């Protein structure tokens, strides 16, 4: 056996194996481009239709539905800086029937004290139904002044655990998870509720998240969308556009949504309870939950829908420091892998439809394993070219596929934004972003791939999760 292995090892032409792998990486980029172009087509059609329906201001008043009650859940861990402003803006959302539940997940700063002071909270002998497991609740606070606000103080257990505690207290048939640092628009909830009213089969809806850095914020709501100052944030503007307008809108048209962002997502409470709420001990609790809802739909042979609302409804601060960005991307990659591996049975499930046969293979190939293939591709191209195994044309072909196609895809995302929402009014701003769509592929994307590869390795080593922290710049303007 050993002799055979040695013979085999010495007999293999490793340069030719490497050249084949490099060629496979090239094919990989081409296939990825083709899939993205298809997704772009789907997104374009879906967004156009969405925009037409949203603009019908002449509809009869009776076409405006009754608005079902919504419980907004705000998990907060060490959010002393933002939490009061965030809660104030949530309480002023243009929605007639809502309650806000803030879950202080054992913060070590004065998050709770600030809330108590700002809203004149008092401990309340709250009794609630503990349907989902969660770390013990120390106390529930209410305000005589603001009857629609409740604050739950509980032991630290992570974001998923905090959300489960919030679901236990929620009294509405719909629950909305919102990050404490999210900035909403006054009509964000009105827009998000529409899929539930248009089609009663909808069990979850996610909204578009945009970059808040640089934007003007007025009384806790978005005033004017502006371009961030830092280069890192500008790159992320392009990234977010591509991820939300391209990917999620396209998958939504096929009822194959795999993730509803934790920053702003609306769920039918009965569906959440049926699948056991959020799973604790995972980094990507938002994606894991959506995959569990999809698995439940497939198992029950139900026609439930998980949809994506293309309107920009939530604005979030993105990291402007390399360290924070690195940690975020590593965490996201681990979350993605945890969710995908936990639900590997959904892959090519006979009843899974577009989710099992298109969306999940896409996630595995281009999102989960993508960084590995990309980094191997770059390294092999450089090594093989320097050693004269491949010629300059082949190396250039790889770079054009990896970088040039990326530039074009980013440009398409920007064009899609221009066709639809046009949140950046200034044409120079759009042109500058176009420049960043080019620059993004020359360094930023490669660094990102490296971080994601590290996330993949950390996942393989089984590293434990924790609340993500971020060095904040607060580069939006009050």
């Amino acid at each position, binding site marked *: 056996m050993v002799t055979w292995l040695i013979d085999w090892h010495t007999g293999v032409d490793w340069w030719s194996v490497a050249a084949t792998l490099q060629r496979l990486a090239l094919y990989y980029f081409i296939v990825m481009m083709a899939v993205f172009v298809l997704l772009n087509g789907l997104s374009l059609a879906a967004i156009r239709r969405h925009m037409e329906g949203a603009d019908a201001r002449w509809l009869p008043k*009776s076409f405006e539905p009754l608005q079902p009650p919504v419980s907004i859940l705000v998990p907060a861990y060490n959010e002393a800086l933002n939490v009061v402003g965030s809660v104030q803006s949530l309480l002023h959302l243009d929605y007639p*029937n809502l*309650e806000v539940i803030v879950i202080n997940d054992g913060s070590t700063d004065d998050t709770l004290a600030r809330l108590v002071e700002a809203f004149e909270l008092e401990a309340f002998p709250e009794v609630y139904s503990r349907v989902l497991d969660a770390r013990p609740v120390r106390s529930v606070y209410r305000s005589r002044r603001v009857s629609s606000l409740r604050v739950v103080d509980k032991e630290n257990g992570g974001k998923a655990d905090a959300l489960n505690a919030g679901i236990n207290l929620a009294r509405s048939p719909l629950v909305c998870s919102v990050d404490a640092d999210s900035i909403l628009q006054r009509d964000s909830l009105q827009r998000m509720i529409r899929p539930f009213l248009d089609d009663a089969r909808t069990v979850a809806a996610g909204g578009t998240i945009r970059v808040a850095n640089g934007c003007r914020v007025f009384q806790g709501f978005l005033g004017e969308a502006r371009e961030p100052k830092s280069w890192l944030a500008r790159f992320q503007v392009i990234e977010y556009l591509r991820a939300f307008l391209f990917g999620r809108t396209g998958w939504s048209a096929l009822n194959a949504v795999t993730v509803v962002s934790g920053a702003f997502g609306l769920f039918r409470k009965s569906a959440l309870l049926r699948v056991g709420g959020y799973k604790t001990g995972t980094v990507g609790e938002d994606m894991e939950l959506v995959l569990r809802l999809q698995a439940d739909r497939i198992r029950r042979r139900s026609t439930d829908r998980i949809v994506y609302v293309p309107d920009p409804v939530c604005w979030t601060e993105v990291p402007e420091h390399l360290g924070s960005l690195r940690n975020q991307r590593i965490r996201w990659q681990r979350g993605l892998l945890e969710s995908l591996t936990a639900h590997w049975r959904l892959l090519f499930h006979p009843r899974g439809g577009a989710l099992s046969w298109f969306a999940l293979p896409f996630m595995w190939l281009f999102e989960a394993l993508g960084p590995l293939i990309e980094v191997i591709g770059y390294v092999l191209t450089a090594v093989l070219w320097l050693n004269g195994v491949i010629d300059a044309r082949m190396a250039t072909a790889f770079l*054009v596929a990896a970088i040039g196609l990326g530039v074009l895809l980013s440009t398409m995302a920007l064009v899609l934004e221009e*066709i639809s929402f046009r949140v950046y009014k200034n044409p120079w701003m759009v042109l500058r972003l176009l420049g960043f769509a080019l620059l993004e592929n020359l360094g930023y994307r490669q660094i990102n791939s490296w971080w994601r590869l590290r996330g993949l390795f950390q996942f393989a080593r089984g590293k434990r999760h924790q609340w993500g922290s971020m060095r904040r710049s607060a580069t939006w303007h009050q």
Partner: protein
Amino acid sequence: MMTQDPLAWVLGLAGLLLGLVFCLLVFTLILRVTAAREQRRRESVRRTWQPILFDSLYTDSLPESLPLLEKRSVPAFSELWCSLLESVSGSARQRMTEVGRQLELADRIAPLMRHRRFSYRLLAITVQGYQGGPGVRGRLQRVIDWESSPVLALAALQALMHVDEKAGWYWLFAGREHHHWSAERLVAMLAQTDRARARKELIRALRRQSPDTMPFVLQLMAGLRLELPGDALRSLAASPEGQHPDVLSQLLSLAQQPDQHGWVVTQLHHESPQVRVQAARALLRLGRREDLDRLMPLLCDQVWWVRYRAMQAILALPEVDLEQVRALVEELADPFARDIFQHVERESSWGYRGEHGYLAH
């Protein structure tokens, strides 16, 4: 092919993608130009027609002759007409409708019901509802029957309700079998129809529908806050279909009359928690002093909502003193009962109603 010259191959693909981006940019430009032209047309229509439509609101007679409405201006005019029509009532509304009739708006916009643009289809359907006339009913029924979008189908149903309420009621139940309309939208739509008619139609539907549809009909009645006559409620409650927890809980939510009290009380110990919750809720409205003894055991129920609603009902009972309840709760020696008493007592002292929406538990 690729093995021979990969660079040429990839460059070809990049060129293709560049072409796509270029096409998208051209498409964006076309959209912008089209939108600008539409806006100009809207402005022009508004300049011409707004004074005429305003005049028709305030004067008794309509102008002898109306300006020519060009085919391409029909959508813009219809948008203006619909917006104004929605903001007026009575004779002004009739005159506005008459203007539409003189212009044969329903027939002229009807081809747009098959237009590829969603907003045009929605507009055409809405105009049909406002205008009525021969042929409209059939057009709208076809939309409800064939349209895949629940939004367009619902708009057609609403329009049909305007034109022919009887047909509208038929299609509400027929259409619901393949469109997944939400109760919130249907309730909002039915709230605009004749209340007595709605009550009559829903009661009739209750009598002929299957057990699967009964909770839906009852939910609409609860949403519209319609009363179910005592005899109808009793006969439904006594029927085999009425024993289903979904039906029973909806029936309880409709119980308003004092003579239904006896029946409500018998449901307090039903095996289904959703029925117990609604029975306790009904006693918030119909409770009597003697219900105290019946409600007290529910404070030890394993379901939170049952304990909560029972406690609310107890505190709302006539001639029941808070201290008396406190003593009774202490006697129960059940921590769940004590906790829910504190909770609800504090809520009521702070002025909280404890209600959260019309479809709440």
